[in-house]
C-alpha cells in the first residue's frame, strides 16, 4: 500500500518523460560541448529545449540557464546578482516564507557585508505590499519573493509585487518551484527578472533545475569551469536531464486544464471530509489564493510527526512541513510567519496531491487519518 500525498517534496517521474531520457542515455549520449556529430546534435537539442521551455513562460531561450537543482539556481541568483551589482547597492529583500535555499543564501550574504530585510506576510500567507514598499530602499538590488509557498501553497500576487519592486529600480526574483503547472506565468508581461523551476517537482527527473535570467543585469556564476551555459553555469550539460525537464514541463502544461480540475476536486473533497469528520482542525493559509493540490492542516492537541508516522505505517505519505526541515527539529518558520501560536506550531500536516492520486486513495486516507487522530488524542496531555 502506497498513497503518496507528498508531491510538494518530490513527484514520481512520468513514464513518458523517462522514455525520452532513456533514448538520450542510450542513443544520444554525446557531450553537448563535443564538436563531433554526437555532441553537436545534443547542442542543438539543448537549444530546442530552451526554445520550448521559454515559450511556456513567454521568455527567450537565451534567458534560460539549466542548473543541477533549484537550490543551486536560487543560490546562483541570490548570491550572483548581489555580488555582481555592488555598484548598484547592497540591500536585499526576501519574504519571510521563502524556502531555506533562498533564506540561507540571503543570510550568507549578510556575513559578506550585504544588508537583508524580510518582507512579512499576513495571516493568510500573502505578502503585505505596503510593508514591502516601506522596506525597499534606493540601494535595494534584489527582491526575492516566491510564487507559491511550499508549505501552505499560497500564491502571491506576482504582478503587484513586480510592479512595486521595479518602480524603485530593484530587480525581481521569484522562486516558482511550486508553481508548475498551477500558475501560468508570463515572464515578459509580469516583468520578472529571475524565475526558478525544479524538474522533479513536476514529474521530471532529479538533478536538474532551470532559471530564467535577465541578460541585461550583471550576474556572477556560482559554478565556474568549462564555460557551459554562456559561462554562467559550468559542467557537462546534463542532456537527458534537460530533455526530461523539458518534456515534463510541456506535458504538465499541456495536460494542465484537466489535471487542475481533478486535483482541486480531490483536494476539496479531502478538506471537506476532514473538516466535517475530525474535530478541532484548522486550515493554515488562505484557501482561495492557494494551489489546488495543497492542504496544510492544524490538528490541535497532537503532534504532527506522530500523525505522519502513524499514517506512514498505514502506507500514507504526508509531511509535517517542508521535507528539508523534517529531519531537523526546527518548527516551520512559514507557519510562525502567518501567526500560528507556539502551541500550535508542532501539530500540522501538509497533504500535497499529485496527478496520480485517486478518490479511492483519498477515501482510505480519511479513514486512516480519523483513526490516527483519535488514537493520538486519546493520550494527549493537552486540554
Amino acid at each position: 500500500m502506497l498513497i503518496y500525498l507528498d508531491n510538494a517534496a518530490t513527484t514520481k517521474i512520468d513514464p513518458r518523460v523517462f522514455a525520452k531520457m532513456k533514448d538520450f542515455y542510450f542513443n544520444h549520449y554525446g557531450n553537448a560541448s563535443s564538436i563531433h556529430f554526437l555532441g553537436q546534435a545534443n547542442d542543438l537539442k539543448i537549444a530546442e529545449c530552451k526554445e520550448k521551455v521559454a515559450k511556456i513562460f513567454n521568455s527567450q531561450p537565451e534567458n534560460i540557464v539549466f542548473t543541477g537543482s533549484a537550490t543551486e539556481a536560487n543560490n546562483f541568483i541570490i548570491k550572483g546578482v548581489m555580488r555582481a551589482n555592488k555598484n548598484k547597492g547592497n540591500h536585499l529583500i526576501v519574504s519571510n516564507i521563502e524556502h531555506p535555499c533562498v533564506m540561507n543564501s540571503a543570510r550568507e550574504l549578510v556575513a559578506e557585508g550585504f544588508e537583508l530585510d524580510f518582507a512579512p506576510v499576513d495571516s493568510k500567507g500573502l505578502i503585505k505590499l505596503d510593508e514591502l514598499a516601506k522596506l525597499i530602499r534606493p540601494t535595494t538590488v534584489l527582491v526575492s519573493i516566491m510564487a507559491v509557498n511550499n508549505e501552505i501553497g499560497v500564491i502571491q500576487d506576482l504582478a503587484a509585487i513586480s510592479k512595486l519592486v521595479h518602480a524603485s529600480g530593484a530587480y525581481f526574483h521569484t522562486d516558482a518551484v511550486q508553481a508548475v503547472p498551477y500558475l501560468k506565468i508570463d515572464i515578459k508581461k509580469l516583468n520578472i527578472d529571475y524565475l526558478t523551476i525544479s524538474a522533479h517537482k513536476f514529474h521530471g527527473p532529479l538533478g536538474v533545475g532551470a532559471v530564467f535570467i535577465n541578460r541585461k543585469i550583471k550576474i556572477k556564476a556560482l559554478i565556474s569551469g568549462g564555460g557551459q551555459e554562456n559561462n554562467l553555469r559550468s559542467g557537462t550539460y546534463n542532456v537527458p536531464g534537460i530533455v526530461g525537464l523539458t518534456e515534463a514541463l510541456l506535458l504538465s502544461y499541456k495536460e494542465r486544464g484537466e489535471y487542475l480540475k481533478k486535483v482541486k476536486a480531490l483536494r476539496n473533497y479531502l478538506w471537506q471530509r476532514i473538516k466535517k469528520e475530525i474535530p478541532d482542525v484548522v486550515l493554515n493559509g488562505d484557501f482561495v489564493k492557494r494551489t489546488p493540490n495543497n492542504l496544510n492542516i492544524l490538528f490541535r492537541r497532537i503532534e504532527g510527526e506522530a500523525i505522519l508516522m502513524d499514517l506512514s505505517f498505514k502506507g500514507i505519505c504526508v509531511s509535517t512541513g517542508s521535507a528539508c526541515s523534517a529531519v531537523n527539529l526546527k518548527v516551520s518558520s512559514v507557519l510562525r510567519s502567518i501567526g500560528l501560536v507556539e502551541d500550535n506550531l508542532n501539530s500540522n500536516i501538509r497533504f500535497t496531491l499529485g496527478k496520480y492520486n485517486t478518490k479511492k486513495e483519498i477515501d482510505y486516507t480519511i479513514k486512516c487519518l480519523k483513526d490516527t487522530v483519535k488514537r493520538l488524542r486519546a493520550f494527549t496531555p493537552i486540554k
Partner: protein
Amino acid sequence: MSLNYTKKTIDNFLHPKNSGEVKNADARADVGNMVCGDQLTFTIKVVDGKIKELKYLSFGCASNIATASVLSEKVKGMTLAQAKKFNWNEIVSDLGGLPTQKIHCSVLAVEGLQKVIAVYEKNQAKMAGKPAVAKKAVTKKVAAKKPVAKKVAIKKPVNKKLKK
C-alpha cells in the same frame, strides 16, 4: 540525518504500553521540551515503596511516545530508589538505538520520571510531616548494583549504530 526507527521503537509507538492516566494517582508531573515542543504528563501509583503503575500522556513524536512506553514498562516494580537511578541510556539501548536527534526524547522521559517521583516524595513528606530521606541507604545499595562501567558499555554500541 536519518529518522529511521528500530522495530521496537515502532512497536512501542504504534502500541504504546501504559498510556493514559493512573486512576487515583499518588503523584502527577508535567515535563516539556522547549525546543521541540514535546510534552509528557506522568502519573504514578506507589505501593510499599515500589512503583505499581506509571502512566503518561504524550504530546510528542513517535519516539517521545515510544520512550515513555518503554520507560513505563521498565520501571514497573522498581523501588523508588532504583527508579531514581534509572538512566536514559537504558531506554535507548532497550529500543536498539534512537536517531541522534531523538535521543533527547529518552532524556525527557527520564526527567518526567524523576519529577513525578519527586512530587510523590514531597506529597508523602507533607502527609507524614517529615522530609523523605529514610530510604537513602537503599538507594546506595541499588546504585552499587549498576556500576557506571556497565552503562557505558550499553551506550557505546548504540552510538555506533547511530553514526551509520
